[in-house]
């Protein structure tokens, strides 16, 4: 062996030692043990969420809606995103080491009753009020052919009939009343109306982001407003909480608002920080949402839905809120 080969081998050894050593080190960042409890997600005054606290990170947890500051009950179930309604739930989670995920359908005891494979990284999820329809948004990327650019796919399934819409891209799209075809359609953030047929979502094309209203039976989506992202329909079906890019430019961050569907009036909420989350209706007067602390940690905050008051910290070290009551 000449000197160059020896140098290369030595270098390889040192670099391998660094890589392996660091990998082993990540294993020593041990999670303190936490006592898991059997949770029940049937309707009641409780808030379900995903814990981001160090000792229970990734686990589904619950607090009382009346006393959210009290100790949380932590389940053994781990999810990336969680939602619940009418005694059933959905948990988006990995089903392999990378890139493949699943929507796990849960019953009231958080037992997995069905697994729907997803390709792409989960980002948003919602159920219809009666728990019959389930929606998800995933990010698709990681293929070098699109230069690392990201696109989203939003899909939904009717748990009763099994009818699935793989991706909203396959529906007939109508923009400003005209049929529309484009290659750059992206959808995300589905929310359902009470009729189990109407849904709302965000659609982006040509640099614009629209609020769309979808009709599952007719397989159509129509644009109804601009610069409305991650919509969340109130229980009475009259208002939509959403985030909108400041000055229409996502680089400037997002502001939370509520849109009155009948009048089209938008009410900015008292939260002035940038919120990058799909808001959730905690009750008919309160919006819940996560604010990132960085490093995968976040807090759930609450703010009145009429633009009054000020934001208050609801559950620290938590995200993905869903009101069960």
């Amino acid at each position, binding site marked *: 062996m*000449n000197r*160059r*080969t020896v*140098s*290369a081998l030595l*270098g*390889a050894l040192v*670099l391998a030692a660094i*890589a392996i050593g*660091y*990998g082993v080190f*990540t*294993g020593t960042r041990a999670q303190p043990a936490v006592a898991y409890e059997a949770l029940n997600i049937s309707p009641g005054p409780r808030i379900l969420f995903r814990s981001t606290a160090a000792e229970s990170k990734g686990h589904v947890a619950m607090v009382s809606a009346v006393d959210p500051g009290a100790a949380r009950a932590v389940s053994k179930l781990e999810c*990336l995103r969680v939602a619940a309604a009418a005694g059933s739930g959905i948990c988006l989670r*990995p089903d392999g*080491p*990378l*890139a493949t995920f699943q929507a796990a359908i849960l019953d009231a005891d958080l037992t997995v009753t069905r697994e729907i*494979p997803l*390709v*792409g*990284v*989960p*980002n948003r999820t919602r159920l219809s009020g009666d728990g019959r329809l389930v929606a998800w948004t995933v*990010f*698709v*990327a*990681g*293929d*070098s*052919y*699109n230069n*690392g*650019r*990201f*696109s*989203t*796919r939003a*899909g939904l399934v009717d748990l009763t009939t099994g009818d699935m819409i*793989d*991706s909203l891209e396959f529906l007939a799209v109508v923009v400003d009343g005209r049929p529309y*075809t*484009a*290659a750059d359609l*992206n959808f*995300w953030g589905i929310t359902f109306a009470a009729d189990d047929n109407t849904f709302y979502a965000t659609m*982006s094309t040509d640099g614009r*982001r629209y609020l769309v209203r979808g009709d599952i039976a007719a397989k159509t989506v129509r644009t109804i407003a601009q610069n409305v*992202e*991650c919509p969340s329909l109130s229980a009475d079906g009259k208002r939509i909480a959403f985030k909108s890019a400041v000055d229409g430019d*996502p*680089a400037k961050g*997002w502001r939370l608002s509520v849109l009155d569907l009948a009048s089209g009036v938008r009410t900015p909420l008292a939260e002035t920080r940038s919120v*990058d*989350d799909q808001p959730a209706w905690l009750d008919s007067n309160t919006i819940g949402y*996560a604010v*990132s602390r*960085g*490093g*995968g940690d976040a807090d759930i905050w609450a703010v009145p839905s009429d633009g009054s008051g000020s934001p208050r910290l609801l559950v620290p070290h938590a995200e993905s809120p869903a009101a069960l009551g």
Partner: protein
Amino acid sequence: MSTIDRPHSGGDDATPSRRKAFFLLSGNVFALGAVSLVTDISSEMMTAVLPVYLVVGLHLSPAAYGVVDGTYTGATALLRLIGGYVADLTRRRKFIAGLGYGLSAVAKLGMPAAGSAVGAIGAVIAVDRTGKGLRTAPRDALITLSTPPRLYGRAFGVHRTMDTIGAFVGPLVAIGILAATAQAYDAVFVASFCIAAFGVLILVLFVRDHRDEQPVNGAVSPRSLGGLIRLTPVRRLVAAACLAGLVTIGDGFVYLLLQQREHLSVSWFPLLAVGTNLSYLVLATPLGVLADKIGRLTVVLGGYTALVLVYLLLFGPFGGTALLVVVLALYGLFYAATDGVLMALAGPVLPKALRTTGIALIQTGQALSYLVSSVLFGLAWTLWGPANASRVAAALVAVAVVVIAVLLRGVQTAGTAEDVAEAAEEHA
């Protein structure tokens, strides 16, 4: 490792008998191939993990991605040109290539350091792309300078094959690390950095620069740069590269059209790229060898003819699994017949003193016109629907084949002339 452990076989001075043992190519080509292979493992690890990291780890939303993605392409295109010129000017192509590889390596560590700050993540990705922009032209110039002109096709074929092997291995390594460390993304970033650093080490230890063969100072100056562009063959090459970029609609669109046409489940989508890469991997070396035998222009034109077939088949009379296999095989063949072979075609035409600049010019022209074509095809899709848009694209590529043939026929003759001159130089 044995193929790169040939300290004195690099360059044009390798004896024919030693070359024969390794596809007739010099050790330097294999060393550069090994650097690319290792670097691609590292960069594809990142590509595979980044979306999961950004969404699951940092909770970024689609629009935030747009911000992360940014529009660095224009800036890196300019940097590529500047890098090429500086590499020629300082006669330190290995150094500039190494700088590019090094920047990308450091960027891997920047990712965990950036935390969840969107701006910092964007900056890290910009550094990574700057590194890629800097290194490509000097690397390709070094390949030509380490190979006799009659073997350029073979040299680029072997290099691109090794490169693609790395692209296959990368995601698997990332999956392995995530599985072993319970989803520790930072462990993937650190390992990716270590692998990239190993690539730089191979470059430093085993790649030979070609500084001493450079002409004296003054041969590379802004004035000579103008002279380069005034050379008819160079102008024609750049024009052909731009035209080629302009009629290529982009992989994303091809896969999207296949998916819609065949109503593929979305889970198929990643596999389409794998199929193309597999075809590219298998065909790059044989087509490079063939290009040296029957003419590089012939193979390039054959590649674009395969592209015409791909675009036509997208909405042709055939369907089913057979269509998928044929389209992906042809699509890989298109890349194998054009990517490296175009560089092999350009090599002899570009004067040695300005070879890196010339290669950067061709690659930048192709990349920028490719950007334009993506926008135009998006518009065509919206106006005419996918079927008509892809047929128009096929017609445009067919026209481009004829134009490129006319443009480059003379260029190839000029190349042959320089072949003779260079061969004489070698034997002097």
